[in-house]
């Protein structure tokens, strides 16, 4: 009976602690987000120039051979490389 009381107490204390800690982590993270947004400069996203992305990419023959080899192995010789594009 004493152990059941201990089990119930652990259940209540344990769940409250887990919820409390995760709530603290959530609010702490929100606070950190606010501070970092204010203090640290924004990440600079480097945009690729449209000229290079629109131009067809030149694939090195060795790379092309490796890609073809990999496709051959994976598809058991049935697959064919039609086009290789940089995304």
């Amino acid at each position, binding site marked *: 009976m004493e152990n*059941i009381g201990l089990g119930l107490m652990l*259940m209540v204390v344990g769940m409250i*602690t887990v919820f409390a*800690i995760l*709530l*603290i*982590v959530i609010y702490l993270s929100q606070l950190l987000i606010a501070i970092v947004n204010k203090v640290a400069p924004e990440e600079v996203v480097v945009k690729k120039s449209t000229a290079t992305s629109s131009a067809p990419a030149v694939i090195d023959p060795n790379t092309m051979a490796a890609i073809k080899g990999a496709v051959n192995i994976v598809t058991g010789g049935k697959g064919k490389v039609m086009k290789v594009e940089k995304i």
Partner: protein
Amino acid sequence: MEDIFVKLYEMTAFSNIIANPSFLVMYAIAFVLLYLGIKKHYEPLLLIPIAFGVLLANFPGGEMGVIQADSNGMVMVNGVAKNIWEMSLPEIAHDLGIMNFLYYMLIKTGFLPPVIFMGVGALTDFGPMLRNLRLSIFGAAAQLGIFTVLLVAILMGFTPQEAASLGIIGGADGPTAIFTTIKLAPHLLGPIAIAAYSYMALVPVIIPLVVKLLCTKKELMINMKEQEKLYPSKTEIKNLRVLKIVFPIAVTTVVAIFVPTAVSLVGMLMFGNLIKEIGSDTSRLFDAASNSIMNAATIFLGLCVGATMTSEAFLNWTTIGIVIGGFLAFALSIASGILMVKISNLFSKKKINPLVGATGLSAVPMASRVANEIATKYDPKNHVLNYCMSSNISGVIGSAVAAGVLISFLQ
């Protein structure tokens, strides 16, 4: 001549195996685990070393089985009772064999689980959690299975320490389960580790089963991205890189203040994550933590845990209770996460897919992947992976905190 044959027979393991056929049951268990690990790919990185450890421990005369000290630290060495904590490591190696040396040095001291947590931290990305902070609370709800099974196990006659070690299986976190069991009920380490890792491997079976029982098709079709568009989040992260560096430091500090017993797990998890997020300056540390150290720790942990499963320690009703209780803990953890999402949906306009709750138990990232598969089965465009990762990662912190509470109250 006959004498020589008798001596030869006694020298081999045959005499002991015939005298005590329970060894054969242990070999069968080891072979099944090896099959599951090698052929079925169920958590092979851990099940294979554990299974091999079981095999090694059960060859009579091999002295590879771990001898558990009683609560006072007493072990029988060649018929003489000795206190294991007063024996030097070379003495342990000499008198009890190399596996006991490894076990008492690496496992019983609680050294390896935090080291593995460091590796787990180095392999974890807290980005999805930081982007969906609201969802991380479901990582707390999913810990209910731990405490419910603790209560059920006490009712079944387990001591509170054994019940806590059994319940922690519901956290779905192998190192946490092992760490808690070492501290509270080391004699149950073998079956608890096996149950924890087996059920973690069975996440792709258990989650769909519980989800099918508790969720409707309509609920599973809740599209998180559409909900996000309808009710956009007010929090905008302008510099995720800096935030990811500050986060592990802040969380360690907070957890250390509130639940100091959880620091060895959460602290190491966050340290591993910090050296990952810093980037090139600590890339060598990150590489060591996530590869060589993690792999070495996994090998020794697996072998030593397997070696605790000697026939006399494993073949009893307690093990069966642990297997059943572990499943119950797992299923209840998933169910409580789902139910909390359902309750939250009653009061909120922004609906959440209950799969986010189902992944509140740890088992990162397998639980999230399984949840994503279920969601895309109902709607191929409904990818919930990122949202599930939020509760999944917070579940790791949640189960470590739960372990900390249990250790501080019961040790």
